[in-house]
């Protein structure tokens, strides 16, 4: 991969830092009136998801990271690996480890399209779409007529996630859920 100098840093650029691929979020230039300039760079470590700040002398460079973010449809799991397929018509499949799946495992549903981050052609992160529609597999029976009252109860969804839902929701209903907050949005 090419090397990138601090003055080529921009939001979205993927670079290697301490052995991990990172995405640059912000790059700010810090310089006394006269003298050595520095770049204060905010990066997200793509392996851990952690955001941190690092300082570089202006003109220093980092190796680029061979990172791609691709849309992929979830196919199935054999319990060991999770299989995804590219949606660009190539039908190329990727096997994803549990570690790369992270918290997204509770939002998995066949045929839904996820964003899979590849580093050196290996999946390192899977992100769920912001909203997903899932069926309620288990919850206490709905309270008839109680459509306006407050109050909530837990419901287990087909993907395994447990979310708080209004009391009127019944087993078998399909719900729209925000995967970023894990909150119920509406009936689908």
């Amino acid at each position, binding site marked *: 991969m090419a090397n990138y100098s*601090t*003055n080529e840093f921009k939001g979205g650029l993927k670079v290697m830092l301490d052995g991990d691929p990172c995405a640059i979020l912000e*790059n*700010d*230039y*810090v*310089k*006394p*009136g*006269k*003298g*050595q*300039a*520095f770049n204060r760079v905010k990066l997200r470590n793509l392996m851990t998801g952690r955001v941190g*700040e*690092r*300082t*570089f*002398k*202006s*003109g220093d460079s980092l190796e680029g990271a061979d990172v791609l973010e691709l849309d992929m449809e979830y196919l199935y799991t054999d319990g060991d690996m999770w299989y995804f397929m590219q949606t660009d018509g190539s039908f190329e499949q990727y096997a994803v480890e549990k570690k790369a799946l992270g918290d997204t495992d509770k939002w998995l549903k066949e045929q839904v399209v996820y964003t899979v981050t590849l580093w050196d052609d290996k999946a390192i992160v899977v992100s769920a779409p912001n909203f997903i529609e899932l069926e309620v597999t288990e919850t206490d029976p709905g309270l008839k007529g109680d459509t306006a009252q407050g109050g909530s109860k837990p419901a287990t969804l087909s993907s395994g996630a447990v979310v708080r839902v209004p009391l009127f929701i019944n087993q078998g209903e399909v719900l729209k859920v925000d995967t970023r907050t894990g909150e119920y949005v509406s009936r689908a």
Partner: protein
Amino acid sequence: MTVDWQPTAEIATLHERARLLGEVRAFFAERGVWEVETPVLGHGGSTDVQLASLSCEAATPAGRERLWLQTSPEFHMKRLLAAGSGPIFQIARSVRDGEVGGRHNLEFSMLEWYRPGLDLEGLIAETAALIRRVLSSDPGPVRCRRYRELFRDYLALDPFREPLTGLRRLAAERGGLDMAQAPRDACLDLLMSFVIEPQLGWEGIDVVQDYPASQAALARRHRDPEDGEWVASRFEAYRQGLELANGYDELTDAEEQRARFDEDNAERRAQGLPEVDVDRRLLAALEAGLPAGSGVALGLDRLIQLALAKASVAEVMAFATPRA
């Protein structure tokens, strides 16, 4: 739909900016400092190792020549002074490659002025007066502090005497980067920009004086009254953690100037940076005689940013580079 054709500043802000430009011009008119305009493209550029100059090739009466986009109007303005201009000011569009961020833009407006016969103290007072005139609210008192004092107060060390190993360790710790090979000035610059600067100018206008002699740029040097250490006769003015102005007791010695240009280009070669054509006409002007005096460069966009309480220089520029 894309909105990136829109200005980076609101129209109301640009109106305010126009009003403040008027204030600046009135300030200098009242003081008998007249406005000049000098070239953006010159045959020489700034050799300063810490500045990256852009150059281009263009047709001139001499054929196709390499011209440098000026990083400040300094050289041309000094040639006017040598030609007998007397006190002058300019609001000059200046270009510095690589300077990108909330308080920087590739091109910006430099307010630069020169005062033949005025000493640094007099110029500091005038700079503070200009800053007050542009800021709508009273910024509070002007406090002059020596570079050395600041390092003692904020870091408990003497920037001139602290061994290099100690400086490198502290700079690495405060900046969170490897400074093991860093030269002395880079360590001091880091500590100044990361630790000290953000704390300056919150109760008034802080003016820093007596920089290390190695950071003199185009300023004279004098001996520190405390222990005879050489220091640079220059100052910087700060408000709310922002460096606003950089003033010099101007170097007038052509030989000294030539030596500093050569040192800069030697350092550029050593660091693998492109060499910059020296402005031989500036050297000739210095040989002919530059009147003793002081001069200051002020980042006008930053001052306007503070005056209008905006978060970045882009918000007071019609079109910051990303939308230019």
